[in-house]
Each structure stands twice: as structure tokens, then as C-alpha cells.
């Protein structure tokens, strides 16, 4: 119940294309869903996050879509750039206590020119 399932494991996209990464969860108590971006040799960095009271959040080229009834959320990267090549992790937590993050298994995104 604590798991967050993420797909695909890897993704190859051409420059200018749309990258889509999906996540699913079981625990309905989760109320905070961030996406982290990780470059090799670096720690995860918060990219964008959503709470279940909205169905979509957009920041620049990055959009989270959230489907509460299906217990799924996804990250869309519009106009993907080679600089977006990184590993992306979705995560979930229950806010208000320790806020520990349960991470997905990661998606390695490669954007080719």
C-alpha cells in the first residue's frame, strides 16, 4: 500500500517532443505528489508538485495531471530539450506528520537533438 509505481523505466524523445511519465499509487491517504529531477552525481531536485484538490498544475514546460479516482498522476514535459535528459522520480507523502516521501522507481529520460 505504500508503493508508488512508475512507468516507463526509460524514455527516449526527440527534441521538441512531449515526454510523458506515469505514476500510480494505492494509499488514499497520500495528499502530496511531487516530481523530482535527478542529474548524474546530484541529489534529487524538486521540479513540480501537486495536491489532490486540483487536477492539473502547470509550471513552464512541465505539467502534472492528477486523476484522484484512478489514483494516478503523470508528468508531461512539453517541447522536450536535451537539457531535460535526467532521471525523473515521482513521489507521494502524507503531509502533516513526518512527510516522508515514498519514491517511484524512476524514469531515465533521454532527449536527442
Amino acid at each position, binding site marked *: 500500500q505504500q508503493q508508488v509505481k512508475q512507468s516507463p523505466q526509460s524514455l527516449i524523445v526527440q527534441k521538441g517532443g512531449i515526454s510523458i511519465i506515469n505514476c500510480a499509487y494505492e494509499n488514499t491517504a497520500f495528499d502530496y505528489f511531487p516530481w523530482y529531477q535527478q542529474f548524474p552525481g546530484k541529489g534529487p531536485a524538486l521540479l513540480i508538485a501537486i495536491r489532490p484538490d486540483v487536477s492539473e498544475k502547470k509550471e513552464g514546460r512541465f505539467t502534472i495531471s492528477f486523476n484522484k479516482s484512478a489514483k494516478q498522476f503523470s508528468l508531461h514535459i512539453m517541447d522536450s530539450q536535451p537539457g531535460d535528459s535526467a532521471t525523473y522520480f515521482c513521489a507521494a507523502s502524507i503531509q502533516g506528520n*513526518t512527510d516522508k516521501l515514498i519514491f517511484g522507481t524512476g524514469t531515465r529520460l533521454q532527449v536527442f537533438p
Partner: protein
Amino acid sequence: EPEVTQTPSHQVTQMGQEVILRCVPISNHLYFYWYRQILGQKVEFLVSFYNNEISEKSEIFDDQFSVERPDGSNFTLKIRSTKLEDSAMYFCASRGQINSPLHFGNGTRLTVT
């Protein structure tokens, strides 16, 4: 921009030895965490620390692990008797308030031989 600093960046130790991983969280942050990432796998929660005590720990965080905030700036993770399976990237993280974003350091790569 303030950041979480971890030292050393790479630590090699022999099985059975004690190791201390060090972190300097962002200065006005109140909540501190350790996560680990085995090579190629997802990021896993180890422990959270607030008000000078552990607030939550995972199954991974057994009696061989301990955390300490010895002064006003450092936050350490000690592994008393390292095992081969402790080899991983260890990330320190901190946040200001319970619902604020989590900031990760760049990690310490621990190699147990």
C-alpha cells in the same frame, strides 16, 4: 541559493567498520532526513529527525544505524558495523516547515568492500 552540503562525496570502508556520514542542512531548517539510493534503484526513506529526536524510521534503519545533531549545524548518520549491502548513495535532506519543499544534498557514495 542555500543548499544542503554533504561530506565526504565518496567514502570507501571495509565490512565491519564504522562510518559517519556528515551533512550540513540549510541553516533555518527544522526537519532533517536521510534517504539512500542503491545504484540504479529508487530513493528510499531511512529516517526523519525533528526537535532533536527521531520522528520516524524505516525498516532499513535498524540498530546499526544512528543519527545525531551534535551542534547547531551538523546532522550525521552513523553506521556501526557496515555490511556489503550498505553500499549506496546516502542523501541528506532538510525542510523548513512540515509542508515546505524538501531540499536534498548531492549525496555521499558509500562503498563497502
